[in-house]
Structure formats: C-alpha cells, structure tokens
C-alpha cells in the first residue's frame, strides 16, 4: 500500500465527553431560585432542606445534563454557585 493511501482511522483517539461539577455554597445562598429557574438544561432543583438562615438552596438533580454554560453562576446574586470542569482523573 502506498503512503498516499495510508491514513489513520478517524476515530483513533478515544472520544472524551466534557463533564462538569456544580459546587453549591449552601450557607451563603439566599434562596432566590434564579439558578434552577433559568437553567436551560434543567440540571438544578430546589432542595428540601434549608440552611442556617432558613433559605432553600438549590441542589443538583441531573448533573449528566449539564453542558457547562455557567448561566447559574452568572445569575447568582450571592456568589453561592459555580461550575467547575471535572478533573480527568475522576472521569
């Protein structure tokens, strides 16, 4: 086979999927519900338990749906939620 026709298969590298962690700092949350209302992928929901100040923080409902758009981080008024790329070792 000549070198012109030799080529590596297209799917040579193993396909990786970007995964994300959502970190919720429950104690600084004021329960405004912006993050789980405006999440475009419906990843978050309101939790049943309240924090020390009596507000209901969000909790993660389905992390596999998260695409890392970070809208929850942008609309949070209290610096209480952020999205982090999951480290490859945990994958």
């Amino acid at each position, binding site marked *: 086979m000549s070198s012109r026709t030799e080529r590596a298969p297209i799917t040579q590298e193993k396909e990786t999927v970007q995964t994300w962690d959502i970190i*919720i700092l*429950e104690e*600084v949350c004021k329960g405004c519900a*912006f993050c789980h*209302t405006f999440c475009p992928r419906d990843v978050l929901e309101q939790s049943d338990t309240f924090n020390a100040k009596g507000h209901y923080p969000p909790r993660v409902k389905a*992390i596999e749906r998260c695409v890392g758009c970070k809208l929850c981080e942008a609309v949070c*008024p209290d*610096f209480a939620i952020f999205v982090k790329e999951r480290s490859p070792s945990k994958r």
Partner: protein
Amino acid sequence: MTATTQSKPSQEEHPITRYVRKDRIPHIYCPACGIGIVLTAFATALDNLKFDIDKLTVVSGIGCTGRASGYFEADGFHTTHGRPIPFATGVKVANPELKPVVISGDGDLFAIGGNHFIHAARRNVDMLVLCINNFMYGMTGGQQGPTTPTGAITSTTRFGNIENPFNLVSLAASAGAVYVARWTVLHARRLAKSIEKALQKDGFTFIEAVSPCPTLYDRHNRFGSGLDVLKLYKEISVIRNFSDPMKAEIDYSTRIVCGEFVDEEKPEFTQRLAEQSARLQKR
C-alpha cells in the same frame, strides 16, 4: 451519578471571589435583589480581562448600591450622597494610571448627583459609571425618584407618580458619553461582556442595569417576587443594538429596550489636560 454538592464553603472557593472581599460575603442585599448579579458580572468581567486590581478604584455613593465599593478587593471610596463622580474625577486627574469605576444607584447618580453626571460625561473623563436602576430610592424606604415611571406607586406617591421619568441612556448619550448600554440583570452574561468592553475604552462610559427591588418597588406595584420580575424581563425585554436611545423606553407592561446604544471615540479629559500642561511648561 453521585451528588456533587458540597456544603462547606471552606473546601471550595468561588473562582471570581479573588476580586471580592470574602469576609464580607454574604452581602447585605435582600434575597433576589439584582445588585448582587451586577457585582457578579463586574467581578466576572475583571476576571476575564485579568484586570490589575491595583489599577482599579471602585467609587460608590450612598444607598443599597453604595455598599458595592466595600465588597471589592480594589481600593475604594464610599463617598457622600450623589458625589461619586466628582471623587472619581479627582482620582483620575490625580493619577491617570488608575481606572475609576463608579457603581451607584439611580437616585444617587441622577437625583442628587445629576449635574455631576452630565458634566463628567461632557468633559469625557475616563471612568466607567455602572448605574443600577431599581426605579426609586431603595435603602431609605422606597421614595419616588427621578427614574420612577409615571403612575408607579411608591412610599411617597401612594396614588401613582405624576412625574415623567428620566431616560438614562438618552441622557448619557446626549451628554456625550462614548459608550452607553442598557441591560437587565437577567442579561448577566451580556452585562459582563459590556462591562469588559467599557473597561477597555478610554473615556466616559455608562452602563445601566435594570434591577428588581423585590422588597419595595415590586411589592408596592404588585409585580411579585424577584423571580417573577426576572421572568417578566425574559418576556418583555428586547435587544436593539445601536438604535435611537431617545426611543429606548422602559415599561414593565410592554417592553424594555436593551442593548448598546453608543460606541464611539472622543479625546479624553486627562490626556488633554496632560498635553496642555506639557505645552505650557515648555513656554
């Protein structure tokens, strides 16, 4: 999938809080207040630009939004009522290396400090004015102010406001600001991009952030909780970039016109001052 929430704040640190005084968090703002979103957008813009915190001065006036200068790691002024822009002008003239950012409310900037605003815009002093507009005086109990819409109910206009409100973007554009934009707090990412753009510009830049006040304005006028107001913003806000600012009205019942309205270049005040001073010293 295991739950990934963590309840202990000490374990994980919010990535943008290196620009924020962590000992001051949680801040004083009411649940669902929009000021926090603007602070987040500002910190995000600083983080995206990798802005040198030593070149930044945050100046704020009096009111809920006036507390903002205390929440940033940068040098800050919490000034007298209505006077953040004169303080910022002084900062800029004394040390042109610094970038003053005025974060203040509509009552502070346009009622008490109205003349300072238009003259700083006319002189084109290099600063970013970030006005958080909640349509009345928040901290003092919800009194009618210069941006209160006609017919709105506040603590001092119990039968409806009979005055006409200011159109802030039109005022800033006609006074000579080089960059004018308006966003609601729901446009958090566009707001952050806009702040980034304004921080890089040389001249007087003005950004208005329309914010809910769930404790006073939205309660008096029966708009519901802060969440309901943000849902309303999602329905009625339209983006019209570079449209006529005179026609960019805010009406909670029909529409809020958002977008960038002015983006131009003009000679800046402190540069002209330095040029003139150098020219006169040669004589």
